[in-house]
């Protein structure tokens, strides 16, 4: 018995001419499914392409044009192309400063928010009366509107009537109130050594850790509840202490989700605009690249330079992610 079945039965079907080749009217299940899939996805795709993909492509075009905001009503899409914007990006010291700040802010912000999230998740792991409410509190910084919480932080840190400086001067005996959000740096001496402490940058980093640790807390908690209790019970019977149980049982289970969180948080922090803009306006040594782009766009109206910087920012991110995936890709696969 021959077992040769042609994969495309069209025309040469073994059952003869009456059988079903794909004619224009008759669609196979797979074809109908593909059609339905494309139709259902079309609205989303249109919006995404229109509002995300086209603008990104356009940014690339704009980055090579000398275009001012006041010109846009008169000029077409294709103007004179120039490399000035890109060379301008790399030759301006402001950009390197902003990029360094961005990197520092992203690395510290990512690490602290995930670390704090892990600590919170571990502390809230065992059940206690009122845990659900405490969990709700943990998520408040993340869900509350950014404008409201930055405003509250500004007020709390206000040198004149902010509660932090009030407590600092009256309880901890600070000689002067600290201008947390407007002071670039201050000298601090620890053990006889003088340090330059970037006050405002540390403050926005603290805000970032405070606002985004709930995100890490959520994901880590979700993963932790999925760890079977038997694993830890077995380790306990084997005589493992709490730190050993964490190190050898829980931590390996959390690693994939922490790797994923690192990527997500790093991307979001790297691109962050709202928090810093609202807290310091990018002043006092906190100007990250996205704030700088905003300033170029609105204050100077320099669309070309703004686009070029946005482009370079994305490229730097893509390169960093590429490096990360090379080393941690395996953990991400698991997550």
């Amino acid at each position, binding site marked *: 018995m021959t077992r040769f079945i042609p994969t495309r039965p069209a025309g040469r079907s073994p059952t003869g001419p009456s059988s079903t080749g794909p004619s224009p009217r008759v*669609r196979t299940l797979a074809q109908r499914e593909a059609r339905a899939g494309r139709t259902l996805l079309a609205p989303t795709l249109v919006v995404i392409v229109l509002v995300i993909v086209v603008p990104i492509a356009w940014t690339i075009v704009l980055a090579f044009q000398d275009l001012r905001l006041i010109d846009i009503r008169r000029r077409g899409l294709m103007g004179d192309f120039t490399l000035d914007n890109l060379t301008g990006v790399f030759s301006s010291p402001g950009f390197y400063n902003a990029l360094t700040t961005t990197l520092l802010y992203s690395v510290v912000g990512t690490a602290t928010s995930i670390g704090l999230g892990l600590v919170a998740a571990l502390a809230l792991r065992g059940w206690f009366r009122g845990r659900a409410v405490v969990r709700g509190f943990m998520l408040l910084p993340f869900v509350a509107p950014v404008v409201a919480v930055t405003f509250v932080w500004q007020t709390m840190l206000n040198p004149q009537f902010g509660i932090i400086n009030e407590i600092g001067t009256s309880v901890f005996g600070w000689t002067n109130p600290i201008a947390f959000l407007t002071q670039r740096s201050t000298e601090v001496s620890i053990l006889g050594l003088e340090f330059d402490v970037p006050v405002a940058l540390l403050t926005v980093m603290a805000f970032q850790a405070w606002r985004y640790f709930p995100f890490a807390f959520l994901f880590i908690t979700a993963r932790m509840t999925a760890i079977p209790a038997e694993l830890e019970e077995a380790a306990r019977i084997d005589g493992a202490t709490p730190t050993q149980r964490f190190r050898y049982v829980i931590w390996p289970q959390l690693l994939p989700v922490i790797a994923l969180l690192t990527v997500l948080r790093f991307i979001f922090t790297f691109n962050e605009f709202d928090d810093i803009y609202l807290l310091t306006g990018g002043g006092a040594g906190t100007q990250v690249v996205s704030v700088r782009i905003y300033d170029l766009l609105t204050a100077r109206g320099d669309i070309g330079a703004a686009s070029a910087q946005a482009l370079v920012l994305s490229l730097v991110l893509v390169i960093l992610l590429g490096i990360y995936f090379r080393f941690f890709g395996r953990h991400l696969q698991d997550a």
Partner: protein
Amino acid sequence: MSTVSYDGVSRTYPGNDRPAVDRLDLQIDDGECVVLVGPSGCGKSTSLRMLAGLEDVDAGTITIGDRDVTHLAPKDRDIAMVFQNYALYPHMSVADNIGFALKVAGVGKAERMRRVREAATMLDLQELLDRKPRALSGGQRQRVAMGRAIVREPQVFLMDEPLSNLDAKLRVSTRSQIAALQRRLGITTIYVTHDQVEAMTMGDRVAVLNGGVLQQVDIPRQLYDKPANVFVAGFVGSPAMNLIRVPVVPDGVRLGDHVVPLDRATFARIDHNPEVILGIRPESCRTTPQDGPELHVRVELVEELGADAYLYGTAALGSDRHTDIVARIDPRCAPVTNAMVRLTVDSTQVHVFSASSGQRLSS
């Protein structure tokens, strides 16, 4: 009510070389219940799903009545299906589950309720109409799934292992209820199962599939008495038929020290092959001395099932050759383990298959 016909139907899953169903030809009469049976992966479910319209047909045609439905959407086929996991809609009450197809078809509310009640009465579900599926027992869920199928009065019923989620006892009673219901409604039914007892009891005819290829379609009795090939012989019947490779001698085949005589017609079909496969059902072996070929068997295990007992042992075929053998014996005089017994084979009840093709040679 309708006939169903598969004509040279094939299905190859994307990324697979071997077709899941290979040129299936099967005609099902109006009102008939045909059971598709075979080991897992034999293509029985794929065959059913192609008829349902849930799976593409790569070659061949499927017709219901005189309509070619090969490429019709499931909703246009006028069929009803009972799924293995029942697929009850968890957010709908029992009544809504049963009446859903009618609602989609635009049947008015009063008429719908009347038919739902009728079906519910038939299946003894009247008390449960307002419940949600999760509040039902396994057997009740199964009946709701049946109700959903019968309320539509479709041309064809499709049943995909509808009993496999029930416990053994419930399965037996539900089996007979479904069979009775099917006969009463007289709706053409295709029933898929991997359980050969279910197949033999439910089907007007049984189609045995293996490796995507239809092996034999026949009434249950015939399938048991005249299996078309080695696969069907080994698949149908429990415990399975003993299949022993034996040499051909001038007037029969040699089994141990004896010769099993074969009739002329069979002998002619052996066609000078040096060996054939001899099939002996467990009940064709006797421990009591009788006329006929004998086997010397070392007892390894005796399974006592009350009315019957089965002996599992090793039979010597001479010159260092041995074969495992199963025989049905009288439980009241069961031998002990490691005893040597003589089994007499009823030579009128043996089956002969080709050693090369596996096809049946005896008539």
